[in-house]
């Protein structure tokens, strides 16, 4: 507990001083959506490599600690590529079993020098062909998280052997990246087009389904932590406003309609927290229950954050509907987060299939 508490205090301290709302807006509005200085400070705390084993230069921590970091990042709407690099990228490499790629990439990743994006996690839209001079990738991968700014792209593509993970350099020929419009103003996504782009096989050809599923479980657990951080923050905003805003001669939080709305947010946040914690713990414990815990967290934490973000706007009334107020940044983040790693419907259907599978 103390270690997690210390970690939380350090990360929160850093983000409160170095990434307050104005700075988040500035970075999000900048052409690249990235800030090397702030990234350097995160790296100074070892955050990109927090869940990378020590042998690869990481902090060697588990998902419990990673969750603390992401919860704080979600709370601050940190617009930097932690989720893509520290979770998706690092986990894809670790789960691929490719020790060579791990030894090459992970130390750079942990040092903040290699930003990694992962594409095609949910649905492969690329094909891979093994030619005389190595693998070539073709296709369009949509919605790649932090794809435009990444130094290395990990792409799931369909080879003859089945789904397979590949690495593509940002400078690879035939590669083009188009930033997309995003609902979430603090998180970039890109369309990546590959035309006979040379790629390096990561792990074993045909092993991609296993790797993608394992990465997805971890992505859902990590995202759940981020969602809990965001949900907790909008709850605090709503409560603070309800305590200090007076209408009809009373703090509006003394009216049951507002009070109970805040209580409903709390109920969801508390449940989201145990759901996220359970998913993170399942990663660390390596329990076979992980896919279930991840989907439970995926569907519930996403919904809880979105409802809380919407309720926060309602509690604020008109002021919450203005561009200048941060409420909409969380509302945008919440809905976007709900869509990134599968919809709530997909998570629920997956749970039913997992249950059916467990019954043999």
């Amino acid at each position, binding site marked *: 507990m103390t270690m997690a508490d210390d970690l939380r205090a350090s990360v929160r301290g850093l983000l409160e001083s170095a990434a307050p709302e104005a700075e988040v807006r500035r970075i999000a509005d900048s052409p690249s959506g990235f800030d090397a200085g702030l990234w350097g400070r995160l790296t100074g705390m070892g955050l990109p490599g927090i869940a990378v084993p020590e042998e690869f230069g990481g902090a060697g921590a588990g998902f419990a600690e990673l969750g603390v970091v992401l919860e704080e990042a979600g709370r601050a709407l940190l617009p930097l590529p932690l989720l893509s690099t520290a979770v998706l990228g690092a986990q894809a490499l670790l789960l691929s079993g490719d020790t060579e790629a791990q030894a090459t990439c992970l130390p750079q990743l942990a040092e903040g020098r290699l930003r990694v994006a992962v594409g095609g996690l949910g649905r492969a839209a690329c094909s891979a062909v093994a030619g005389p001079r190595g693998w070539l990738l073709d296709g369009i991968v949509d919605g790649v998280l932090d794809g435009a700014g990444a130094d290395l792209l990990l792409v799931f593509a369909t080879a003859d052997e089945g789904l397979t993970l590949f690495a593509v350099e940002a400078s690879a020929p035939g590669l083009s990246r188009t930033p997309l419009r995003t*609902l979430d103003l603090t998180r970039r*996504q890109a369309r990546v087009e590959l035309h006979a782009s040379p790629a390096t096989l990561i792990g074993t050809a045909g092993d991609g389904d296993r790797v993608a599923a394992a990465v997805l479980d971890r992505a859902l657990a990590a995202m759940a932590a981020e969602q809990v951080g965001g949900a907790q923050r909008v709850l605090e905003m709503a409560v603070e406003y309800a305590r200090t805003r007076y209408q009809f001669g009373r703090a509006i939080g003394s009216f049951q309609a507002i009070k109970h709305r805040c209580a409903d947010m709390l109920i969801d946040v508390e449940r989201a927290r145990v759901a996220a914690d359970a998913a993170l713990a399942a990663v660390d414990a390596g329990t076979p229950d992980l896919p279930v815990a991840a989907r439970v967290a995926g569907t519930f934490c996403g919904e809880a954050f979105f409802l809380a973000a919407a309720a926060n706007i309602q509690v604020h009334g008109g002021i919450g509907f203005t561009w200048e107020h941060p409420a909409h940044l969380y509302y945008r983040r919440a809905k976007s987060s709900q869509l990134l790693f599968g919809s709530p419907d997909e998570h629920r259907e997956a749970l039913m299939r997992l249950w059916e599978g467990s019954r043999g």
Partner: protein
Amino acid sequence: MAQPSADESIDGFRARVRTWFAEHVELTGGAGAESFDAVESARRFQAALFDGHLAGLTWPAEYGGQGLTTAHQLAFNEEAEPYVVPTMPLLIGLGMCAPTLLEKGTPEQRDRHLARMLRGDEVWCQLFSEPGAGSDVAGLRTRAVRDGEDWVVNGQKVWTSGAHYSDFGLLLARTNPDVPKHLGLTMFVVDMRAPGVTIRPLRQITGGSGFNEVFFDDVHLPGDAVVGDVDRGWQAAVTTLMNERVSIGAGGGGLGRRLGGGEFAALADVARRRGGLADPVLRQRLASVFVEERLLELLSQRIRADVQAGRTPGPQGSVAKLAGAQLARHAAEVGLDLLGAGGAAWTPDDADAERWTQALLGAPGNAIAGGTPEIMKNILGERVLGLPREPAVDRDVPFRELRVGGGRS
């Protein structure tokens, strides 16, 4: 074209309306509420309507109206149904300010403004809400102080729809802070171009700017700008707000259909093009939107029928307001369900993503503007169902001792 009279046969009138629309079809068509272009379209349409003796059908003839019956209004609405009537920017004036002047204004105010409003020559806005007075409108702090015969106004309004293109506004200001809050307010007519009035657009979370902040800096108003009685402005404001709710509930004051067609049709179209129509779960949600939309149409029909028959609308106005906001939210959420990951990130040519993410961002505003759900439910609970009010802590307290907004008044 003949001057109308209440004796004009419905059939004859109907033919006249049909002819007028056929001849002025170039004046109809889609228009939003936010741009100056839209205001010009509205003005041109309304002027032609006025000149064709078809504006203000049931208004008294002395203020430029036609003095016709509700049966004529009904026939007009039926004939107008196929057209998109571009009068949205005039609705606050015609639907809220004009009825207030008709009921509470002086004869001079009515003579000066009503016919001009009816012809689209004057566009009006409403200046009630303030940063510290949202749901609690009567908690407003903008002061109007006597200066001889005149008044001097200082303060700030917010959420003023169309202030940037309006000619006049109905202003509610505090004229006596030493009495309980409802008893020291006065309503004024204010020229939006008067010295000291500053209008600043307010950017919404959608990125659009339909609303404004309006600052009053030693703005001088003549004594005859008072609407109704000094310190009795709350009664006038209630008239305005009642008309607002009926107007929102009826779906735009009874003139034409909602712009852009229904939510269900648009969603079903997205589902058809992008493949959601085969998904039984999404079909359920689409059908729920269909049902909600149908119920809202039925409610609005009933409100319009009541208004046109001269009956006071029942609770349907507030119900429709709430149901409309709920529909907007549900439709937007279903839109995002249909888009999936494509609703989080999209290429600029993806019109579906643009529309439904905008709808999602706009939905909270639908629930807030014109009365929060909390306020609407209080109205339903207390005025319709007769449930007791909360113990009021601000009824018998002089306004200046009251805590308002984020601080003390």
